[in-house]
């Protein structure tokens, strides 16, 4: 059995290594035919002088190839700007389509074979590693032995490498998708299987890898928590919703010429729901599109309050949601890394509610725009920089003064990092990646309604939820996004805090303050603080994963739905008749 497990790990690592290696295993050759077939006729004339230099030249790596294409477009646009030919400027992104068409070699010739080696091989390896645990790890029960000695689980070299890889992967997906063309091509056969007319993209690749991770690591979760039916049912639920609702159904809808739609996603997490293009797409797709539009609105207007009232926000966050699904499966090995300090909780409330407000304002502006209004203002970029820096410094000073014992290091770090990033983005707004997302013209910010949406998409949608939200799993735990950023979690949390039957109850006086509950709370709730004083845990951030209850060695914690009047009661510890112990 041990041998099976070791072999499984080796097979998995080989598959994973092959996947990473595929980034380099290909060649790209742009030909005149490809150029002619992929570039719009009116652009061909403009781009040909620049791009013909690349014709029939072979590149062994995607990066210089893509850079050269982008440089060609940039040069042409620079020229056009200089000549003030604003209408001719090329906005199309040709890097993806040209790179894909120009790719050749191993990845194109043996796509299926490689797909099988990477994903089927990877699955077999992973399962060989996971399943023997049923026997090897001993009788069913909590399996946390050695977690804090493990280089993956405790920010050791494996964890740091994994986190770095994830961050790089997310940056590629969001901003440099053409670089990872080999991987996009790798999943093309699957895409064609689901929808023969479709084309693989970085989003299909992402969706597939995401689902793959949720399902395989979901199996791991089922094995690990086979003694807890709550955990098994919940894990099966997130696996199902990711596989069916997030991955397969939208793809099948597209094959049936219907709009791409994830029936379980909702505003404000789904921040482009009210984008003009999205509303148009749905409302122009006949009855089913209208239904989808109505469904999407009903879900957050009626669904959220109703279900949160009966079950707490867990019905979504740890049973249905895709982000939650990844966190609860692939993220499970990192749950103990979330910060439990009061200071982290203060930062959390500030950030998540900040994002919520930002999201609501952004959506308001987008809708205002949709209904024909526009709204704009200009601000000198140095004013923005000053305001951001002053806010960061001000908040840090305020915190130091208000909580002199805490040290305020974390507040300073977070405020400093965010301010630092905004300053960088503004100062270098003319430079490559920022140019697309930061609406600075000369030294002025020009904010029109839709620009707010662009900034939100860049700062929140890409950087926060993706790069940091998932990339930082191995550093800050598996719920970085859900805890600090998700506007839907904030909304669900309001309802959970103020109008719900859900609470975690503590069992009389049985708590021994051991700390397992707090340590394994992925949301960084200091569960023990409540348990040891005998107080119901009613926290807006609690996603109801139930792990605190599972790891408690004394049977103290239980997730319950009950009468609202018994929710906020005085903390009480039973067993001492000397005094009524209300803290």
């Amino acid at each position, binding site marked *: 059995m041990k041998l099976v497990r070791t072999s499984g790990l080796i097979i998995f690592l080989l598959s994973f290594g092959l996947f990473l290696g595929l980034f380099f295993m290909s060649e790209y050759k742009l030909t005149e035919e490809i150029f002619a077939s992929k570039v719009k006729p009116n652009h061909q004339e403009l781009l040909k002088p620049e791009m013909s230099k690349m014709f029939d030249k072979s590149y062994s790596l995607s990066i210089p190839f893509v850079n050269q294409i982008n440089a060609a477009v940039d040069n042409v646009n620079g020229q056009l700007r200089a000549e003030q030919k604003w209408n001719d400027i090329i906005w199309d992104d040709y890097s993806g389509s040209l790179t894909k068409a120009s790719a050749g070699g191993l990845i194109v010739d043996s796509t299926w074979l490689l797909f099988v080696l990477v994903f089927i091989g990877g699955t077999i390896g992973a399962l060989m590693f996971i399943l023997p645990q049923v026997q090897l790890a001993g*009788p069913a029960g909590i399996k946390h*032995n050695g977690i804090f*000695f493990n280089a993956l689980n405790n920010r050791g070299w494996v964890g740091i490498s994994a986190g770095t890889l994830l961050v790089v992967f997310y940056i590629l997906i969001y901003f440099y998708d053409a670089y990872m063309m080999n991987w996009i091509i790798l999943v093309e056969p699957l895409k064609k299987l689901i929808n023969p007319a479709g084309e693989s993209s970085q989003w299909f690749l992402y969706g597939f890898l995401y689902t793959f991770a949720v399902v395989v690591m979901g199996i791991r979760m089922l094995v690990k928590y086979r003694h807890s039916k*709550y955990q098994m049912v919940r894990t099966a639920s997130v696996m199902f919703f990711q596989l069916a609702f997030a991955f397969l159904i939208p793809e099948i809808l597209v094959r049936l010429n219907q709009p791409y739609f994830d029936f379980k996603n909702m505003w404000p997490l789904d921040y482009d729901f009210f984008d003009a293009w999205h509303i148009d797409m749905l409302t122009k797709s006949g009855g089913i599109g209208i239904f989808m539009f109505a469904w999407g609105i009903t879900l957050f207007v009626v669904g959220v309050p109703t279900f949160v009232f009966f079950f707490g926000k867990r019905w979504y966050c740890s049973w249905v949601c895709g982000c939650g699904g990844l966190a609860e499966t692939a993220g499970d090995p990192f749950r103990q890394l979330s910060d439990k300090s009061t200071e982290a909780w203060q930062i959390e409330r500030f950030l998540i509610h900040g994002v919520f407000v930002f999201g609501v304002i952004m959506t308001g502006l987008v809708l205002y725009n949709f209904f024909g209004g526009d709204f704009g203002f200009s601000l000198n970029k140095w004013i923005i920089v000053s305001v951001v820096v002053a806010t960061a410094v001000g908040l840090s000073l305020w915190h130091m003064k208000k909580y002199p*014992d805490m040290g305020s290091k974390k507040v300073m770090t977070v405020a400093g990092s965010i301010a630092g990033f905004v300053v960088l983005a503004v100062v270098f707004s003319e430079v490559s990646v920022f140019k697309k997302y930061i609406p600075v013209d000369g030294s002025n910010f020009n904010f029109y309604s839709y620009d707010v949406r662009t900034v939100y998409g860049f700062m929140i949608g890409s950087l926060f939820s993706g790069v940091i939200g998932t990339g930082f799993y191995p550093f800050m735990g598996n719920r970085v996004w859900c805890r600090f950023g998700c506007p839907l979690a904030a909304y669900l949390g309001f309802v959970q805090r103020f109008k719900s039957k859900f609470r975690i109850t503590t069992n009389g*006086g049985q708590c021994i303050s051991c*700390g397992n509950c707090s340590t394994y709370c992925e949301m960084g709730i200091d569960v023990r603080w409540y348990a040891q004083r005998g107080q119901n845990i009613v926290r807006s951030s609690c996603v109801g994963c139930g792990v605190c209850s599972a790891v408690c060695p004394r049977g103290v914690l239980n997730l319950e739905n009950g009468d609202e009047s018994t929710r906020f009661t005085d903390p009480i510890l039973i*067993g*001492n008749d*000397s005094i009524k112990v209300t803290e």
Partner: protein
Amino acid sequence: MDHIVIIGNGIAGITTARQIRKHSDHKITVISGETEHFFSRTALMYIYMGHMKYENTKPYEDWFWTKNKIDLKKAWVKKVNYSNKTLEFEGGESMQYDKLVLATGSKSNKFGWPGQDLEGVRGLYSYQDLEYMEKHSKDIDRAVVVGGGLIGVEMAEMFHSRNIPVTFLVRETNFWNNILPEEESKLINRHLFEHHIDLRLATELKEIVSDENGRVKSIITGTGEEIACQFVGLTPGVSPNVDFLKESELNIERGIVVNEYLETNIPDVYAAGDCAQVAEPLSHRRAIEAVWYVGRMMGEALGKTLSGQKTAYKPGIWFNSAKFFDIEYQTYGLVGNKLQDNEGQFYWEAEDGKKCVKIVFDQASKKVIGVNTFGIRMRHEVWDKWLKEGKTLNHVIANLDEANFDPEFFKRYDPEIQKAYNGQFPDEQVSVRSRSLLERIFS
């Protein structure tokens, strides 16, 4: 404003300090040589097992103490001078107090075994014990644990978590049989075997054998068998840690003798927690109860007294809990290892042999006296109420689902238990019922 000095930063000392701070402005100093900050002693095992780091076992953040003006001093007290109210520290310093709380906890028992002070032989109580264990159990082939109680089984689990084979010597015929009735003891025996613990029942330690460097190399059992090992965990219980207080006017028997207000025989000197021995314990309690909950409850009462509201320590219905590898245990009320003459019992065990419920009752009145539950969580509040109100066995069995504290979706054993009850007590039928899933979801 008095200067209240507390020796010991465990649950008893810290609870006292927190309660004093809550209700008064006295100056508070908590002294400990063990660690700078309060940590959960019961969680020491999880540090060794890699479930948590030391930091995770601290119930309060470090700034909590400055914010609440509870001064911490890391030092060992050498001597207490009661006449001029002064503490002397190892290292020569001293400190004045107005009121003194002794919350010095326990120390591991040693019964004079040959070789008990060899290198690689140690009990488990303090943070230093944990460090010692960590240092001396690297790359060893086998550990022997002596003493079949709660700390013994914890130590066995600790070694097991690091794939160190464990031989577990238990003097009783079944695990923890001096506390648990036979059925429950046997249930845990089986579970230990299931985890491949080399459990030796009815086996005593005769001698610990040294190698040439003064380090343990084996032990010899009462039957003369020699077992090679490189670490010996001595866990035959604990006793009050009061050696440094002896030979003074302080009245010490096994522990520091206190009255119901936790006052010692010396004015302005109090004791709480493991080290305290209650002079006249209530009928359902013992004089020394070295458990977390008692330390906490004594601290709650004493803290109030020291804040100016004189409060007697009156513990309620006994309760306790533990976890043996994967099997959780809770108890409410009094269940002895043997039935008293007036007692009867109801026992149910699940088919897998890993869950059971035992309820002891008074045969004449049929009122319940106590419950042991293994593998099923029960509500403290409900049992406390049943026991206080003297509910009958029949009432308890009929309403068992009220007491269930297992997570949602877990199998409910109430119907099975009720059927078993109807079988064992043909004259006392209860109706067997289980709530539907919907009923439970929307309860």
